[in-house]
């Protein structure tokens, strides 16, 4: 019997993976071949999806992007034994895109059957938790702090400090909450890890719950990810069956449950306090801080709230030790960052690498430049609240502080590439429009400022009082940045200001045709 892998990853499915898997099974049956098709996560080489992998004695051989119409010719070419074919990319692990990475968080993603606890364990799964049980809660918090892990959601706050704050609260009801409301355009790392290696997130939550003294964990997932919802719910059930969730886990005396909750299309619920409100069943309105969620969080109880990637990286840190992780990266940006290369780009996908790699290398060498074949003009880094970075700043290293020094941010590690046909005043307008649509409405700078921003940019685009209105727009951005309650209003000016700063010519075209 031959083992085949065809991803269940949403991006692979969007390119026809379900139909492909059905066609391969049908063709195999017709030819009397026995095959086992494992639905794995994606390797992250998304331009090759759907990618079929065939297990051979030499390793897993990849074929992609494979369509239903290619199935017959793949069988004819003897792909079940790794035969030559136009779509053959060779041994997947040896592919240059894979070789150049340092996979830490994504080490198992695409490799294992995401819903097999046995395979997860065979790939070092639950070793981190087992070690945590050995060293005790206080040492776990210490280890996470020493690793230098910073929140991968965008703000980059040290994870260990958050955990310590909650651990230091008096015993009682505490919560672990995972923020899986990955709303930034150009990002899909949370989605990929939850589809490709969901047990790593569950293990991270277990370690966290054990360290801070919480027995209940919630995952708040955006509704735009229907496949994640199915896979992750199934993973919770598998973990329960295997005794890795529930009461007295593996005889440790530690109890922990995980519950999946689905959002309802509000971007602002990716903001941690708004997320907590939503979990409680209220409008997703941002809370003023302090009090911090670590002190007064979900239902008023001390709560650790971490991004998916931060939490999914914990098992590896516990398994290999803080030093192993801290030795990677540069400056205060320790470890690795799963970069998501997206937009108008030739080789889009997920590329995990140590911090410090220059932006231009990621876009041009790894991403292969614009898919359209035209010159790259700008890259928006860090989602809809991130700055547009021009080609002249392509030597900027991927590092929280280096980006901050250029009024930019890394955020959740999403890179959206634009070619030279982009109209930057339109993108600035869209940034404000998006903020207006998604504002929770609690604070005035965000609620009103965003709408005024759209109106002002419209005036500029229509050539009305351009100089005065650009000044007004800059002033408005300043007010929003420093007067807003949360990152939505506070960071929405970043794309606008960066567009103004790096692409002023786009705001001074005499007759701008509406990009609509």
């Amino acid at each position, binding site marked *: 019997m031959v083992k085949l892998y065809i991803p269940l990853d*949403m991006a692979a499915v969007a390119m026809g993976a379900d139909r492909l898997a059905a066609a391969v099974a049908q063709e195999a049956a017709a030819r009397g071949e026995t095959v086992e098709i494992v639905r794995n996560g994606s390797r992250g080489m998304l331009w090759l999806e759907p990618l079929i992998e065939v297990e051979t004695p030499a390793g897993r051989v990849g074929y992609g992007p494979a369509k239903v119409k290619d199935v017959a010719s793949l069988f004819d070419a003897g792909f079940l034994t790794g035969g030559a074919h136009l779509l053959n990319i060779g041994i997947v692990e040896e592919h240059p895109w894979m070789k150049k990475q340092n996979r830490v968080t994504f080490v198992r993603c695409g490799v294992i059957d995401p819903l097999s606890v046995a395979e997860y364990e065979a790939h070092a799964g639950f070793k981190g938790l087992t070690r945590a049980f050995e060293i005790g809660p206080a040492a776990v918090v210490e280890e996470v702090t020493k690793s230098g892990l910073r929140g991968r959601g965008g703000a980059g706050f040290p994870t260990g400090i958050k955990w310590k704050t909650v651990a230091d609260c008096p015993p009682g009801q505490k919560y672990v909450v995972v923020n899986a409301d990955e709303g930034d355009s150009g990002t899909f790392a949370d989605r990929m890890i939850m589809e490709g290696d969901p047990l790593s997130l569950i293990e991270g939550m277990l370690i966290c719950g054990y360290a801070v003294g919480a027995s209940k964990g919630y995952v708040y997932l955006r509704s735009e990810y229907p496949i994640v919802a199915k896979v992750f719910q199934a993973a919770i059930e598998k973990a329960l069956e295997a005794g890795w969730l529930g009461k007295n886990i593996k005889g440790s005396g530690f109890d922990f449950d995980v519950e999946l909750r689905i959002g309802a299309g509000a971007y602002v619920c990716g903001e941690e306090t708004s997320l907590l409100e939503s979990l409680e069943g209220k409008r997703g309105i941002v809370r003023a801080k302090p009090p911090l969620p670590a002190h007064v969080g979900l239902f008023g109880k001390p709560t650790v709230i971490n991004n998916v990637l931060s939490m999914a990286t914990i098992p590896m840190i516990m398994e290999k030790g803080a030093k192993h992780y801290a030795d990677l990266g540069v400056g205060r940006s320790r470890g690795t960052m799963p970069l998501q290369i*997206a937009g108008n780009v030739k080789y889009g996908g997920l590329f995990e690498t140590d911090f410090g790699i220059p932006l231009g290398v990621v876009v041009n060498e790894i991403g292969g430049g614009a898919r359209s074949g035209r010159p790259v003009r700008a890259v928006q880094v860090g989602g*809809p609240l991130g700055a547009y970075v021009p080609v002249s700043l392509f030597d900027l290293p991927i590092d929280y502080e280096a980006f901050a020094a250029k009024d930019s941010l890394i955020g959740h590690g999403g890179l959206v590439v634009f070619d030279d046909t982009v109209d930057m005043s339109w993108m600035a307008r869209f940034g404000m429009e998006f903020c207006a649509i998604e504002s929770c409405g609690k604070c005035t700078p965000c609620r009103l400022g965003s709408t005024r921003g759209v109106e002002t940019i419209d005036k500029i685009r229509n050539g009305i009082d351009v100089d005065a209105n650009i000044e007004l727009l800059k002033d408005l951005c300043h007010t929003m940045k420093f007067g807003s309650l949360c990152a939505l209003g506070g960071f929405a000016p970043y794309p606008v200001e960066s567009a103004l700063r790096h692409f002023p010519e786009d705001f001074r075209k005499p007759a701008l045709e509406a990009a609509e």
Partner: protein
Amino acid sequence: MRNVRTEREEMSGAAQYSDERAREIIAAHMGLEGPAMPILHALQKEFGYVPDAAVKVMAEALNISRAEMHGVVTFYHDFHRAPHGRHTLKICRAESCQSMGAERQARAFLDKLKLDWGGTTPDGALSVEPVYCLGLCAHSPSALYDGEPIGRVDAEMLNEIAAEARD
């Protein structure tokens, strides 16, 4: 080319609203901490939208004011206050998809159907909604048709979907 209906949620199967059924759905979730969102999702799944009558029943069950309940329902883009099209097409208009010309393409499609964002065709077949990122950004432009993700959407595929929805 998209003839295998594996993961579709058929909106046409929506049940007729009754207070009794709404109470059953609510009761099934009352053991949860903060049950409002799971209840709203379940109500919408059952009836295709969240009727005003259900909001009233829910407010009573959760012991909060109707105004507060109304506030919750209307805050979230996903919850519909009125019956929706039998099929739903969500087209992404976030930055990544815009970098591949999604905005222009979507606008042309909407113009052809004589719809605006959020509108439903007069025969009740198809609602077209904006969505801000589906996490399919390496395959922009993208869309979600009745829960089925679609990458590299072009005008031809959009027209196919519109035709299929009418059947």
